[in-house]
């Protein structure tokens, strides 16, 4: 390489040379100025997404419990420790422990809808297990009797209709003076010391663990369907836009008709036809998005084809394939990347919708859509059943959308400013 400095050559300004010496990390910080106010947007969305993806890949590190196990009483409010329950029995029956009233000939009462039944079941299961392990051949399975009102239940206990009544001690204390013949016979189950951060659902599964594991499904389905859609839609769009002619017309017609279907309905139809299973869900959602990529890529291809630099490439003698790969493709990719992130967000929503409707995933999969479906009826009693899965869907969707927005700024900087 010659060292001569030809006449009229240009001095590279020092500040430009300095910038080249700067390392990559430093350049990211310097770039902060370049991105301007959008910088924090990029940073926040990137961090959030990274976190979500890690949670999705390694849910077991984050989830405190097995999402399918019944780890607690049902419908436990967030943070609330399981309540203490006592057995209330007539004073004269001299009941001292659960074992005395828990045989199959006994009836035990509680207020309908309260976690008392759960507590009772839990305790009877436990003592059955314990005693059977100790060699006794017993089975504790009292017949549950549900009462609408506390008073009814206590009356029934008085009359002997039920052998004992399960209730929280505070509730009984409040009305104990009205029932002097009843007393707290024994402790059924002590209060728990810790509750569940986000509560439990109606089966007693920990909600936090379920939504953490739900992230994995969302990420898998969301990303896979988006990737499939890209692999199918982008090449078709490129070729269709580049070649034109009858191929273009046929494909456009096909894609437009797919595109005009309302998304969720199309996904439902495909899922219904293909049957259950996570693979089929992925396919259904992917098909949904292929037309979007096709249209965008085709439009971009047509626009880029008109650009002067493509003509310049032709004038150099470049072959058609080279023009497509080196000139059109790199200029079309930025829009694909942006759509991709929005696509993932939408795919997660669609997947939640599909499983909400009961299509695709096996019923007890820890999935946000399934949880949303199950929790619908409990909105008033146990709001936490749908709030947290719903919030997760929103947050993850938001994170991917934010990423899409910030990518749009980075990949297509406004070149008009100097």
């Amino acid at each position, binding site marked *: 390489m010659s060292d001569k400095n030809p006449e*009229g050559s*240009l*001095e590279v*300004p020092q*500040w430009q040379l300095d910038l080249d010496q700067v390392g990559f990390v430093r350049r990211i910080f310097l770039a902060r*100025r*370049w*991105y*301007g106010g959008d910088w924090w947007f990029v940073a926040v969305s990137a961090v959030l997404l990274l976190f979500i993806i890690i949670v999705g890949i390694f849910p077991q590190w984050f989830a405190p419990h097995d999402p399918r196990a019944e780890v607690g009483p049902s419908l436990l409010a967030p943070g609330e420790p399981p309540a203490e329950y006592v057995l209330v029995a007539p004073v004269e029956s001299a009941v001292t422990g659960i074992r005395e009233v828990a045989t199959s000939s006994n009836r035990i009462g509680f207020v309908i809808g309260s976690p008392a039944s759960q507590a009772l079941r839990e305790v009877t299961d436990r003592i059955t297990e314990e005693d059977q392990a100790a060699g006794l051949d017993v089975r504790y399975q009292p017949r549950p009797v549900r009462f609408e009102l506390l008073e009814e239940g206590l009356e029934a206990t008085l009359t002997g209709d039920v052998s004992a009544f399960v209730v929280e001690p505070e509730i009984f204390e409040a009305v104990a003076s009205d029932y002097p013949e009843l007393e707290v016979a024994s402790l059924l189950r002590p209060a728990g010391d810790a509750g569940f951060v986000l509560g439990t659902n109606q089966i007693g599964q920990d909600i936090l663990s379920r939504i953490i594991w739900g992230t994995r499904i969302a990420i898998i389905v969301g990303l896979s369907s988006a990737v499939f859609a890209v692999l199918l839609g982008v090449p078709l769009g490129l070729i269709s836009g580049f070649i034109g002619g009858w191929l273009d017309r046929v494909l456009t017609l096909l894609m437009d008709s797919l595109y005009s279907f309302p998304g969720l309905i199309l996904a439902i139809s495909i899922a219904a036809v293909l049957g259950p299973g996570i693979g089929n869900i992925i396919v259904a959602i992917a098909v949904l998005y292929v037309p979007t990529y096709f249209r965008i890529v085709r439009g971009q291809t047509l626009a880029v084809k008109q650009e002067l630099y493509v003509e310049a490439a032709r004038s150099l003698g470049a072959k058609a394939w080279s023009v497509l790969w080196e000139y059109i493709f790199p200029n079309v990719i930025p829009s694909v990347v942006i759509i991709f992130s929005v696509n993932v967000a939408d795919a997660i929503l669609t997947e939640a919708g599909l499983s909400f409707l009961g299509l695709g995933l096996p019923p007890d999969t820890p999935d946000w859509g399934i949880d949303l479906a199950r929790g619908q009826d409990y909105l008033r009693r146990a709001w936490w059943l749908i709030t947290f899965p719903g919030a997760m869907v929103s947050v993850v969707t938001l994170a991917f959308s934010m990423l899409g927005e910030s990518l749009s700024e980075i990949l297509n*900087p*406004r070149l008009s*400013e*100097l």
Partner: protein
Amino acid sequence: MDAHTLLQVRDLHVAYRTRLGHVSAIDGISFDVKKGEILGLVGESGCGKSTLGKALLRMLPTSARIEGEITYEGGTNLLELEQHALRDFRGRRASMMFQDPMTSLNPVQRVDEHILEAIEVHEPETPKEAALERARTLIERLGIQAQRLRAYPHQLSGGMRQRIMIGLGLVLNANLIIADEATTSLDVIVEAKLLDQLREVREEFGLAMIVITHNIALVAELADRVAVMYAGRIAELGSVYEVFDHPRHPYTQGLLKSVPNIKLDETEELYKMPGEPPNLTHPPSGCRFHPRCPMVMPICKEREPTMVEAKPGHDVHCWLFAEDALKDQASGKVAS
């Protein structure tokens, strides 16, 4: 301010905040425009001439910071005017012609509607027939047939559209027209005709004009006085004969020698000015022209030169002419 001065600009600064950093587009400019004179503002890209044109009518985006003083006919500083007074100024006192009249004319409005709207906004008491009559006379005086009044902008040629723009300035008896690269997109003959038109209009109506362009030949054809701008500052300001016959600033000298002249018989070598106009996010220190100046001195890199009157009416921004300042500096007297 004397009675002949129409517009006075003092110490104008305009800065933008872009994502590539702080850009000082105009860095302390001062000049006068006399009544009925044509001032040519010539410079290359990045010199700030377009910014200046827009700043005079306060048409810069809100992200721009403007400081300084612009006085019109001895009145209040334009930069401090209220919106409604500003609207009165724009259109009535001063009007602007842009490079591409296609985009500055409303494509869904006919020509007469444009003119009538201008009259209506600024002089609402004018009855419609009188306004139409004004429009008609005006169009004909500009050399366009009256039936073209009913045409849409896209049906007219580029030259005609530019003449409509002149007309919009004239119809309200503006005193000042700012033409920002008004002829850049026109063919040579059409451009020449437009220049003739502008001269006629000036003769007849006594309009003052600020002609902003990168084409120095244009300025030679049309202007009475010339301001040569470079990188946001005025390099040289004087009568057109002075500046062309005796250019004092090295930039002006270089520019004149590097521009092809169709009338010169010998094909002399054009002067190849080294370097390029600077990037205003990282302007050179001191005198912004110093990296390209063949007569650069040590002081040029350190301090921005002050405006010196090399001859009455001929100002230069160059250390070569600030002998007193240099002497004072050498003797250690004055700090700046």
